[in-house]
């Protein structure tokens, strides 16, 4: 009897281990397949943009293999980077994004702190309300906003339309609700005892926010910053609607309005402009992502 049991236990155990490792191998293979598909799908447009940006207009319109550059040239890059127009777009975009991120954080962080931590009448309704405002699409808002700016100009004589800085007032209507909302969630996940300990230690609400909440919630704040930056850097509809002079344009609308002349598409420069425009967010993400991860694990690894 005993030997029978041992014989039985031996092989059944072996096959189990074998099948588990085989399962894992297959799972790994499938994940590689799908990850490769995913990467190819999403890298397709930027690679095509990059290839096109290295071609001359003649080569782009020639009936050759679109995936190969026969006469590579940097002329598109040189032309754009030496054109004052393009550099103005770039500068306007950068200024708008920096101001919008700053304004958004200055409003969202205290708002989220108040909604997550201070119990006051209507705080939960207000928190939901903040999120609901985000759900209103911006395509619905630009006409009323346009009207508002026109009325404002009538009453005060201050012309808001066709100034790049008007976007600094407009974009926070998109970024503040969402950033506040994600930070309410992040702040709510911080144990309540942490602020109670700070308050008992003698901290005011402001000190609790700045010295405890902001450092502890830094990963959440960075996520919100990335969002605010992306929205203000890539927003297309509002700058198209609110700015028209060339010197007041930002990158996304500027590239389209200046590089498409009538029905002539300057594809080489459009692709180059789009690539150069995509570079700053990429660099910022890469930098913040490192910071984000090191922020999460700082206490665990540093000696």
């Amino acid at each position, binding site marked *: 009897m005993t030997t029978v049991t041992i014989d039985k236990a031996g092989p059944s155990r072996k096959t189990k281990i074998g099948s588990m490792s085989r399962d894992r191998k297959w799972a790994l293979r499938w994940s590689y397949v799908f990850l490769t598909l995913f990467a190819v799908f999403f890298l397709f447009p930027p690679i095509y943009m990059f290839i096109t940006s290295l071609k001359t207009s003649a080569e782009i319109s020639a009936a050759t293999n679109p995936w190969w550059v026969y006469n590579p040239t940097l002329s598109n890059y040189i032309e754009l980077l030496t054109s004052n127009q393009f550099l103005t777009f770039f500068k306007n975009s950068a200024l708008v994004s920096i101001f919008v991120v700053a304004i958004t954080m200055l409003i969202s962080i205290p708002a989220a702190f108040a909604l997550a931590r201070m119990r006051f009448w209507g705080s939960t309704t207000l928190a939901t309300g903040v999120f609901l405002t985000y759900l209103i699409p911006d395509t619905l808002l630009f006409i009323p906003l346009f009207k508002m700016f026109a009325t404002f100009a009538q009453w005060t004589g201050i012309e808001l339309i066709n100034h790049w800085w008007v976007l600094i007032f407009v974009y926070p209507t998109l970024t503040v609700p969402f950033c506040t909302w994600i930070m309410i969630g992040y702040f709510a996940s911080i144990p309540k005892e942490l602020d*109670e300990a700070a308050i*008992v*230690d*003698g901290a005011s609400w402001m000190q609790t926010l700045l010295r405890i909440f902001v*450092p502890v919630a830094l990963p959440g704040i960075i996520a919100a910053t990335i969002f605010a930056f992306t929205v203000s850097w890539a927003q297309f509809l509002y700058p198209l609607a609110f700015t028209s002079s060339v010197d007041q344009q930002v990158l996304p609308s500027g590239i389209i309005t200046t590089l498409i002349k009538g029905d002539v598409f300057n594809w080489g420069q459009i692709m180059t402009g789009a690539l150069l425009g995509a570079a700053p967010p990429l660099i910022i993400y890469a930098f913040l992502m490192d910071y984000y991860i090191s922020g999460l694990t700082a*206490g665990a690894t540093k000696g």
Partner: protein
Amino acid sequence: MAEVTLRKVVKRYDDVEAVRGIDLDIPDHEFVVLVGPSGCGKSTTLRMIAGLEDISDGEIMIGGDVVNDVPPKDRDIAMVFQNYALYPHMTVAENMSFGLRLKHYPKAEIKQRVTEAARMLDITDLIDRKPKQLSGGQRQRVAMGRAIVRNPKVFLFDEPLSNLDAKLRVQMRIEIKKVHQKVRTTTVYVTHDQVEAMTLADRVVVMNHGRIEQIGPPNELYHRPATKFVAGFIGSPAMNFIPCRFEESGGLLQVRVGDTIALPIPPDRMERYRAIPRDTKLLLGLRPEHLVDAQSNTSATFQPFDATPDVIEPMGMETFVYFPLAGTQLCGRINPGIEARAGQPLRLAVDLNHMHLLNEATGHVL
């Protein structure tokens, strides 16, 4: 350091009264433990003293000043939380000095106070680490250090040892007691663990349903509980409660348990119990250590009886036996040298000098 006084303190959440009018005087230097089951209002009481909860009614005084409307930061208290609540982005030293830095103490004094507290708690080597790199016990020491460096009027502890394993809990209990003996700061300590309450407290406050059941030194609560709740809550294993009735035979009072056992009341209690109406429903309260084996307890104060244990628990220095009697399950404590087996009859003895008699209806000890 200061005394803490609670006068008719009430806490209401909408319709629910969590704390129902508590009166408590804690003199300077005293270590008071609030103990009770979950939801008895002990943590709420502590949080009201800290100022983290508003007071619905009544008065709280710290050092003679009414602090009802004083914010926590101006009450000069320090609190240790159950989950430590250390600031994760600060080192141990920064955690401990946070309160002092907020009050702009001179750097030299901060350093001196932190070093001193770290030495007292044996965490000098950990001073530059972040909380993540510490074990549970070390974190709790840091949390205590953060309280000590402030040198507050009152220490408040909210179940500080509940997150630690059993062995560490005993160790930290001793540490807390040592620290209190050194700094002598008035302390209010909340726990649901009656062993912690007994071992740490100068006085224990037993709470139940938002009220104080009894206040007294640990031994007084153990030996002279005022109510059934206190009698059952303090002591482990818990006190046995056996339904019983009074009988008078030949001018002597005796307690009848079930049909077979009649136990004579000790003469010194005769007068106290004689006034009890005969038809009162009673409970006989006996601690396990007063239900012992008859073999090693032969003096006249012990009344022998037979029982059949169904569970035997050897603990090493003592053995607990569980047996049914008069429709209830009882626990006795016998000499570990005695051979006892489940299902086999055992001669036990009861020491009535330590008996308690309770009114079943009111729950009061008579």
